[in-house]
């Protein structure tokens, strides 16, 4: 690394980091992206045997036998282990935190669901839907989101490319749910950041499950979609294999001066100087970085005068139930095995205290790479199980629905005595479902059971939810209007440090039932435009490109 002072140092290349770096670089600004991991080879996912890439058949050290390894779907070799990830080994007793610490972050394995928050979802935030609407549109076009115009008040429409056609299993589930005639219940084409236009070179080929990694680059990821547009620009630089350890400031100064990193190859400490720093490392890693940046004037970590760093950890708790649909028995197998979740389902229910809550999720029907249905076959003689499992294989569906997050300040990250393999202190996690969350999950389960039975479901198999398996982490550096209530302001600037910004899920003060990734990316888009507007005069070509982009 040279001794340059970079205008913008962006830590992380996932959902938020990728968008903000791309937009700032396209605006002609000087940007350095710092990424702990490596760039995956271009054939990384094509080397996987379809349909999945589960490590060790999905079996974890704590998987229970007899019965099914419940979290098999999350046992992918790209997920960071206890020696590499942000959270300590003991943290996973309370909360399983999943991270991909390679270029592109969690989006290497994301399901790509991209939905807007509704205006009511911003209640209590210092920004509202109106502040984000144009940035939602810009981001949807940038990452190509497929979907349809559905005109649902709780789910604003967006700028879409065509949705995927429904399969027979989708129609069976859709009819079943619509037949329940519940108010405020919708079953629509799923909205995902996937290239569905068949004339494109990276069009979805329906050959695998999105969360195993996309073999044809149809799923949006920063490394394959946006990085190629900026990596040759003279004003953009990406450095990989560089783990961010802490931020530093001059004594007595609120401004951040440098990012201290460890070269993961040589082990050497590297000092990166900058004028503005944007942390986009995720809701677990960003607070960790702030804790580890403590100094004499900030003994609880930087940006933490409010005490809010690490608090209000949220995730979408979920219920996932699976079954074999009798209506699909005897039907020929579909060759359309990929893009598993074509349906998005939204509904509402009421708790015993009279309060309403919304829930949202999808139906998954495709080739199954972990046999969660085995428990249901235990009554069948062992010699017949393989035959029966093959016969029923193409009839399995799963409904997975998410509850809203529950912002509790005591669900939190705290500095840990444990260290990762680079010697960097990790974080411990305290997390517990509230009674309200448990009741929500109970209601959601009732909805799913009824829907699957109506759809001709036979034996139902449950996937008990473990905290953290929503992988929609939020809240730990929350936005607030007042400095005493949060960590960043409405423009994602740290209340305590004028040149520090945060641009990942940690800034969301609350988490509705909907998937949060599009909103993270939209906030990143807005941040980039805000910073570019503040920046000194820049090359005319870059100004034109930015104006052209905003006008699309």
């Amino acid at each position, binding site marked *: 690394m040279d001794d340059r002072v970079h205008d913008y140092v962006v830590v992380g290349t996932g959902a938020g980091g990728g968008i903000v770096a791309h937009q700032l670089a396209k605006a002609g600004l000087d940007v350095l992206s710092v990424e702990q991991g490596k760039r995956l080879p271009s054939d990384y996912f094509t080397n996987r045997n*379809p349909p999945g890439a589960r490590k*060790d*058949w999905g079996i974890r050290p704590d998987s*229970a036998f*007899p019965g099914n390894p419940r979290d098999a779907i999350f046992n992918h070799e790209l997920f960071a282990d206890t020696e590499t990830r942000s959270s300590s080994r003991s943290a996973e007793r309370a909360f399983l935190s999943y991270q991909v610490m390679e270029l592109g972050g969690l989006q290497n394995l994301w399901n790509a669901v991209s939905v807007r928050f509704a205006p009511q979802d911003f209640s209590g935030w210092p920004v509202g839907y109106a502040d984000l609407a144009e940035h939602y549109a810009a981001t949807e076009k940038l990452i190509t989101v497929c979907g349809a115009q559905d005109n649902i008040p709780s789910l604003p429409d967006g700028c879409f490319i065509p949705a995927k056609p429904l399969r027979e299993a989708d129609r069976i589930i859709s009819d079943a749910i619509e037949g329940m005639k519940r108010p405020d219940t919708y079953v629509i084409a799923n909205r995902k950041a996937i290239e569905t236009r068949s004339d494109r070179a990276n069009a979805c080929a329906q050959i695998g499950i999105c969360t195993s990694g996309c073999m044809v680059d149809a799923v949006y990821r920063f490394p394959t979609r946006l990085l190629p547009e900026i990596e040759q620009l003279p004003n953009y630089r990406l450095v990989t294999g560089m783990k961010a350890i802490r931020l530093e400031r001059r004594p007595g100064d609120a401004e951040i001066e440098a990012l201290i990193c460890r070269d993961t190859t040589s082990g050497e400490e590297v000092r990166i100087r900058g004028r503005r720093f944007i942390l986009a490392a995720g809701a677990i890693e960003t607070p960790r970085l702030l804790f580890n940046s403590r100094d004499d004037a900030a003994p609880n970590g930087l940006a933490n005068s409010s005490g809010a760093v690490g608090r209000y950890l949220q995730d979408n708790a979920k219920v996932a139930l699976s079954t074999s649909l009798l209506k699909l028995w005897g039907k020929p197998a579909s060759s359309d095995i990929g893009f598993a979740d074509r349906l998005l389902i939204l509904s509402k229910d009421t708790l015993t205290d009279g309060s309403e809550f919304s829930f949202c999720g999808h139906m998954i029907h495709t080739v199954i790479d972990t046999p969660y249905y085995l428990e249901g076959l235990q009554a069948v003689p*062992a010699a017949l199980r*393989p035959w029966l*499992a093959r016969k029923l294989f193409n009839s399995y569906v799963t409904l997975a629905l998410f509850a809203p997050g529950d912002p509790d300040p005591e669900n939190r990250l705290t500095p840990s005595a444990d260290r990762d393999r680079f010697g960097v202190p990790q974080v411990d996690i305290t997390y517990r479902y509230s009674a309200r969350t448990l009741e929500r999950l109970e209601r959601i389960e009732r909805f799913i059971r009824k829907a699957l039975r109506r759809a001709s479901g036979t034996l139902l198999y449950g996937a008990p939810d473990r905290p953290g398996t929503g992988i929609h982490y939020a809240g730990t550096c929350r936005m607030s209007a007042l400095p005493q209530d949060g960590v960043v302001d409405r423009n994602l600037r740290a209340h305590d440090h004028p040149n520090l910004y945060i641009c990942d899920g940690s800034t969301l003060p609350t988490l509705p039932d909907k998937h949060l990734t599009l909103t993270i990316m939209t906030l990143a888009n807005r941040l980039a435009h805000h910073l570019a507007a503040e920046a000194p005069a820049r090359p005319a070509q870059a100004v034109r490109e930015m104006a052209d982009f905003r006008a699309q």
Partner: protein
Amino acid sequence: MYEDTQRRELLQRLLEQSPYRRKLRGQEEDIARVALKNVSVCKALDRVLADPDYASSGRIHRRRLAASVATINHLFEWVYFASDSFVERARRG
């Protein structure tokens, strides 16, 4: 607490007696690697290894050790059904 070599030997023996033995041929090393990291499987193996009949004569008392043997057979079954070859065959219908 038993050595991995003892557990590995027992695991191999149970695999040879399993209805999935032919289907899992060639995967013995990977199965052992995964099994020996799994807490519930190791506990089941240790219960068999600790059994007086097994310790003295190598005989597995099917009734007394039914639950432990079932745990290990569930592992084999899972591996078979999670394998790419089964999934590809099932997808073909």
